[in-house]
């Protein structure tokens, strides 16, 4: 993914199509080149196969607890989830 980002960065900054709100926004990839997750699936803690030291991002709402592998989120960046009845966005 990383080399893909750098190749696209070189191409796109050469054509500099950036929306300059305060001159600080840079377009580095096409929209959705990194696929966010819209219908996340979950397994229980007992079913999950995760390394003991794996870094996770976690949330608890209304008695419901969700965890997301940080390294897996590198590839998706956003999970559109519902936890304890609350629609939430987990971002990384």
């Amino acid at each position: 993914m990383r080399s893909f980002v750098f190749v696209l960065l070189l191409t796109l900054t050469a054509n500099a199509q950036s929306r300059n709100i305060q001159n600080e926004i840079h377009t580095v990839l096409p929209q959705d080149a990194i696929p966010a997750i819209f219908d996340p699936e979950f397994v229980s803690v007992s079913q999950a196969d995760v390394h003991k030291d794996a870094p996770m991002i976690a949330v608890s709402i209304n008695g419901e607890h969700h965890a997301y592998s940080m390294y897996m989120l590198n590839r998706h960046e956003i999970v559109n989830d519902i936890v304890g009845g609350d629609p939430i966005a987990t971002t990384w």
Partner: protein
Amino acid sequence: MYRRTVGELALTFGVSGKLWKNALIMYDRETGTLWSHLTGEAVWGPLEGEMLEPVTSVPKIKWNAWKDLHPTGQVLSIAGTEYIKFDNYNDYHRSRRTGLFEPGHRDNRLRDKTLVLGVLSGEDRKAYPLDKKTYKTKQKNAWNLIQDVISETPVIAYHNPDQYATGVWNRRLSNGTTLTFPSPTEGHYATDAEGHTWNLLTGMGPEGKKLTPLPHMNIYWFAWADFYPETGLWE
């Protein structure tokens, strides 16, 4: 982490491919508005100026620690996998690079790639460095706590470097009492001056009492200070 609901509308977010101050810009599929994932603010589009409400989360914690805390929890699974071994940002973390672009505002109080606990307390912003020696005591699994006051809010910041885990809470209870903690923790439990024990990862205390959480991030100093140039710094 944010609530996706703005007014009556539950938005769904995709990756725009744009960066602002080196951080991801999201877009919502319902209106095409662009949002900063770091501040939750809509920076362009029909919903410009709206703010997403932050949800207090544990920004980083080791699997073993979390699964013991929440055995009934659910874990994100993609194509039958809950975990991958490889962090494709590994080289970036080891480097001095501050992302793809130089920060717009650099604050030299700390080195760029110092990890900090960035705390949002109302309108206030304050960072607490996550260096191990601040939190380590001579005993195993006993961690020093940071007790501070941000404007008029008494806070407690808990960090367990072995588990990456962090918890930041308002030390003032709903009945007006402000808790103080005279000793380091035992694991993620801490005992207040009255002898009551609190879980500093969940905020749960005696008799069903619960501490009010403060949203916080486990983040590089350069990114935090670029977004929040007005930030205080714990020293």
